[in-house]
């Protein structure tokens, strides 16, 4: 029987199976953050339960943390209580936490891979939908709710039913100047924000294999924006080279054994998927979202779509509502749209490669006069350190960007980094929902290079038109 990568990961984690196909699935790693864990810990306490396996958990505060003047602590008392609660819970139950002043602190989906706490072949969960990120390592990773966070803490298992499988194959060489973000936005544009509902998506093809681990994480991260709880990419030498030597990775004692096992983590040739989608990377252009759902995406050389051309009445009304919220007229060239705020960061695009791509555009340029604020928020303390060793912070600061401390920041605006009503943002994050970056805020999702290009020109522009200075 030819198996998909998903089949292999699923089968190797089934503890028991009921007649109706419901399985008890073993979870190798749970990542915890402050927002979705307090009620789970409280549930454990109320039931008099203890975590099943303390070493399977790793915790970090990320959503509420300030990205400026961190030494002063968190000014909002409600946010502070949530972060303090994580701290207390981790101490009470003996769970490792990278606290706010730990250099390893960062966005949970950045630090897991960075520490080697994310490994090929694992099942990984977190009370956060962007857990799909970790699938880039050939791990089965998905977001869960707080009840399930408690369930995994208490039993190290989840009750699950297997989903359908989809292969998204991206073939051909990606044009220079385009990135993983453009690939995944184009995929979402093609299959829609619910296209992956009920599926686990495996991303394959030569364009995916050519991506770095950072790029692969960007693609898997947004599987949830296509409706799929989990995204997967097969293990290859790029994966193994990335993992080697990281703090939580297997040491010399088990390394060869682990690598031999990881090399099996790919779909067998000829394995069948429930759905296959093919995309030619050579045809792609830089992507920009125009609306309030990630599927509302076009290329930089397009215009804002006209709802009158849409035949489906629900979709047409959705488009009209989106244009109204976004303050945009149909048929406006995307290039004529002028953001006032630029945000570079998040679990989608807060890694070192993203910092480098944005800095390459910012180098020798200045943030345009109409840009009120341009934020660069590294995904972790270690990304920040690395970027500073490479001098990227100086490039950003010289260009007029703000260089901040790590956290989720303006991706969801739980800390003080948020849009004001009506403000328009070129953002490297993952969701352009109404109010996502601040009530009334307007989000255009783009790659880090495209965000930096918008920052230095004051409007959206094809980054390929800017020379490297």
């Amino acid at each position, binding site marked *: 029987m030819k198996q998909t990568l998903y089949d292999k990961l699923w089968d190797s984690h089934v*503890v028991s199976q*009921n007649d*109706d196909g419901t399985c*008890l699935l*073993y979870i*190798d790693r749970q990542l915890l953050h402050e*927002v*979705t864990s*307090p*009620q789970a810990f*409280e549930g454990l306490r109320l039931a008099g*339960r203890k975590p*099943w396996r*303390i*070493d399977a958990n790793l915790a970090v505060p990320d*959503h*509420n943390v300030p990205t400026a003047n961190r030494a002063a602590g968190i000014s909002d008392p*409600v946010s502070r*209580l*949530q972060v303090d*609660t994580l701290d207390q819970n981790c101490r009470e139950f003996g769970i490792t936490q990278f606290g706010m002043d730990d250099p390893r602190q960062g966005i949970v989906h950045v630090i897991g891979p960075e520490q080697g706490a994310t*490994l090929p072949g*694992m099942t990984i969960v977190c*009370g*956060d*939908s962007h857990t799909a990120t970790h699938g880039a390592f050939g791990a089965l990773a998905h977001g869960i*709710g*707080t*009840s*399930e966070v*408690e*369930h995994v803490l*208490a039993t*190290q*298992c989840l*009750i699950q039913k297997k*989903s359908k499988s989809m292969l998204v194959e991206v073939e051909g060489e990606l044009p220079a100047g385009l990135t993983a973000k453009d690939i995944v936005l184009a995929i979402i544009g093609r299959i829609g*924000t*619910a296209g992956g*509902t*009920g599926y686990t998506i495996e991303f394959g093809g030569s364009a995916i294999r050519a991506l770095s681990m950072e790029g692969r994480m960007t693609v898997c991260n947004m599987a*949830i924006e296509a*409706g799929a709880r989990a995204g997967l990419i097969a293990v290859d030498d790029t994966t193994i080279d990335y993992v080697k030597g990281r703090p*939580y990775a297997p040491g010399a004692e*088990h390394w060869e*054994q*682990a690598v031999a*096992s990881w090399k099996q983590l790919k779909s067998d040739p000829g394995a069948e998927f429930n759905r296959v989608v093919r995309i030619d990377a050579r045809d792609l252009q830089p992507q920009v979202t125009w609306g309030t*759902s990630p599927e509302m995406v076009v290329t930089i050389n397009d215009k804002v779509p006209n709802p009158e051309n849409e035949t489906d009445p*629900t979709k047409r009304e*959705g488009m009209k*509502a989106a244009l109204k919220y976004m303050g945009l007229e149909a048929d406006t060239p995307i290039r004529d749209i002028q953001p006032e705020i630029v945000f570079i960061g998040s679990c989608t695009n807060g890694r070192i490669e993203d910092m480098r791509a944005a800095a390459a555009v910012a180098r020798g340029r200045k943030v345009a006069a109409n840009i009120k604020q341009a934020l660069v928020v590294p995904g972790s303390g270690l990304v920040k350190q690395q970027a500073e060793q490479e001098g990227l912070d100086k490039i950003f600061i010289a260009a007029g960007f703000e260089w901040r401390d790590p956290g989720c920041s303006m991706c969801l*605006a*739980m800390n003080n980094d948020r849009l004001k009503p009506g403000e328009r943002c070129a953002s490297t994050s993952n*969701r352009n*929902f*109404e*109010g*996502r970056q601040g*009530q009334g805020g307007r989000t255009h999702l783009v790659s880090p290079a495209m965000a930096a290009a918008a920052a230095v020109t004051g409007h959206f522009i094809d980054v390929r038109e800017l020379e490297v200075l």
Partner: protein
Amino acid sequence: MDKFTTLTGLAAPLDRANIDTDAIIPKQFLKSIKRTGFGPYLFDEWRYLDHGEPEMDCTNRPRNPDFVLNQQRYQGAQVLLARDNFGCGSSREHAPWALLDFGIRVIIAPSFADIFFNNCFKNGILPIILPADQVDALFTAVSATPGYELTVDLEQQTISAADGTSYTFDVDPFRKHCLLNGLDDIGLTLEKVEQIKAYEELKKKETPWLFRG
């Protein structure tokens, strides 16, 4: 978790596709460390004309008259009609907590986002998937008939109304069993302690690098 067996309740229509969990409960309310008290902030940015903050008293906040759940005829609704992909986006369980706290026990839509759908069952909310034409018919009936109530019978897997409307729906047998009996998943899983331990012993040999403790 509260049991769900049968319910007869007022239905309210939310005629929009892709309603995300950021809309259901905006991020600022996620700072709470409790499971309760989210109802007043459900759909906060659509429901009120001012900006909501956690622990705010909502009694005198200005209501948005255009938001459907603010209409007098839908006060006390327990059944929510929605469109495709309801609950997309974030995994926040605060979304079903807010709906439940507001009084919603049943959501009917042509499709739901996976994580939200799953989170509902953990909280005694029944999400029902019906074909788009049946959902359309319900939207029409609810809008046309003030006080339109639906009766949902989980055991029989039926939805019915006084006008003779009657539909059947599918539900996963395990989830149905848990909801009918208000069962705690963790308790059920802990009945399999020996199997979990046996699995771990096997994996400690096969993949020892995953066990550092």
